[in-house]
């Protein structure tokens, strides 16, 4: 059973590998409003050393957490490792196609976002796909930070935690 085909669950190492390999993340649906979930995720990922490029046509040209907001993935004009989709499942379809077009290596759809036909297209084009997950939650779970708040990380080990990056 390859770990990523079903998209119902993902192996810890699969997610750890993706989070360890990507450096530049385009966040589609990033909000300039500080108390929106996307803002939380962007700020957290920045603190872990990722470059996060916000994409939001409504806020294009504005600045979020020091980064200029682009109107679309195509406008970014520089290599992007991963596209993180903060939009609904339907909108995730065309965004995935744009992610393929700009040469991203990973498409990541947020909690509650799942589009299987889009995932099939991305995987056929050689991209890796994670759906219905949050990179902030996964990073913090795998690094043990999530456990600081009493959350069950599911990690059982008698070794010190591996670093993600």
């Amino acid at each position: 059973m390859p770990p990523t085909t079903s998209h119902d669950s993902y192996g810890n190492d699969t997610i750890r590998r993706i989070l360890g390999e990507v450096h530049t993340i385009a966040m589609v649906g990033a909000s300039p409003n500080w108390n929106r979930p996307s803002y939380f995720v962007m700020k957290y990922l920045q603190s872990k050393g990722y470059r996060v490029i916000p994409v939001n046509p409504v806020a294009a040209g504005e600045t979020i957490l020091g980064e200029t907001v682009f109107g679309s993935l195509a406008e970014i004009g520089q290599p992007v490792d991963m596209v993180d989709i903060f939009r609904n499942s339907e909108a995730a379809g065309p965004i995935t196609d744009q992610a393929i077009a700009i040469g991203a290596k990973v498409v990541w759809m947020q909690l509650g976002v799942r589009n299987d036909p889009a995932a099939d297209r991305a995987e056929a084009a050689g991209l890796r796909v994670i759906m219905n997950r949050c990179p902030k939650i996964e990073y913090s779970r795998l690094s043990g930070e999530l456990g600081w708040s009493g959350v069950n990380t599911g990690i059982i080990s008698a070794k010190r935690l591996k670093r993600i990056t």
Partner: protein
Amino acid sequence: MSSADTPETDTPTHGFETRAVHAGAIPDTATGARITPIYQTTAYVFDDVDHAASLFNLQSYGYIYSRLTNPTVAALEQRIASLEGGRGAICCASGHAAQLLAFFAFMKPGDEFLASNRLYGGSITQFGQSFKKFGWQVHFVDQADPDNFRRALTPGCKAIFVESLANPGGVVTDLAAIAEIAHAAGIPLIVDNTMASPYLCRPIEFGADLVVHSTTKFLGGHGNSMGGAVVDSGRFDWSQNSKFATLTEPEPAYHGLRFHETFGDLAFTVHGHAVGLRDLGPAMAPMNAFLTLTGIETLALRMERSVSNAMAVAGWLESQDSVAWVSYAGLKSSPYYDLGKRYLPKGCGSVFTFGLKGGYAAGVRMVETVELFSHVANIGDTRSLIIHPASTTHRQLSLEQQIAAGAGPDVVRLSIGIETAADLIADLDQALRSI
């Protein structure tokens, strides 16, 4: 399949006994200390003002102040959540604090909830008397027929509360049937699993949404540390209706943050710390968390021995002339025997009651005559314990409430420990002969 690739939390990678020893206790990152250190500190330094702001805004994970979170307590929270099959847990000062935190997450003045009438006497008093001061109205329901909960539902009901194994009556609750009634009404089922412990029963597997514990009892197991826990299954959809505004609507104390939208299935756990513990204040002491962590390591072994001792003692009591009845769901004579086989296949705990033909006076004489059993208001210890509820734990109830709770004047409650069964029987024998 990559053999090194372990799946996510909803499918535990290891057995119960392994998780009881290891969950939450990865070696300390800074020092490699093998045993979880006792982080005896109230506060934690911030790197800079921006780091502090991120923590206060809940945008980063980290420690601020031990009233909210503490590394030793967090290790215990993870362990209990793992054993119950939950998404997360909030540990606190006592089982009563856990109940308060569980309801505080979503109750507002004027709200109502249903609770079994077969609860620990202290819970009946907390719900029926003290919760009134918050404007929370409980309706006690006879759980003998689960449909009684359906009949008692009101539009203002926000939850149903039961004990998996009721204290002290030897009553096993039909969790799946009651969960179905709660979910049809769009409200969570809260189960107190103190008497069973997650080794014997895991209520989330039968549809419970929240599980509460007095960790003081079997989890800690040694009668040395007060504590409580609320475990969230992470499965209840707080946004399915408008009943749970505190979790779904903007939270004024966090500048309009919506917990359920922002934290998804972590919402209850995050809220329990960031709002519940922060504002109510019943934090668990790190030392108590450490002792409870150590206790849980042997939970499976202790429960096995406690259950086998309880079976031996209950069977022996049933054959005694001065004993009118024994209420233990592990005995074939119990009306809860079949429910016990379903919900507690490894045994029905080690706390049970029996009735003395001599009534109230015989009960008082019994607890004063035993030598090895400790006369205390506690359960779930390595030591065997005895109490006469009508004169102690349940004395604040009316006679009618005492009988409904299985704690009438003739009732003696035992909590069987892990000693030699023959010694326990010999002690009860000399006490019964003295009556």
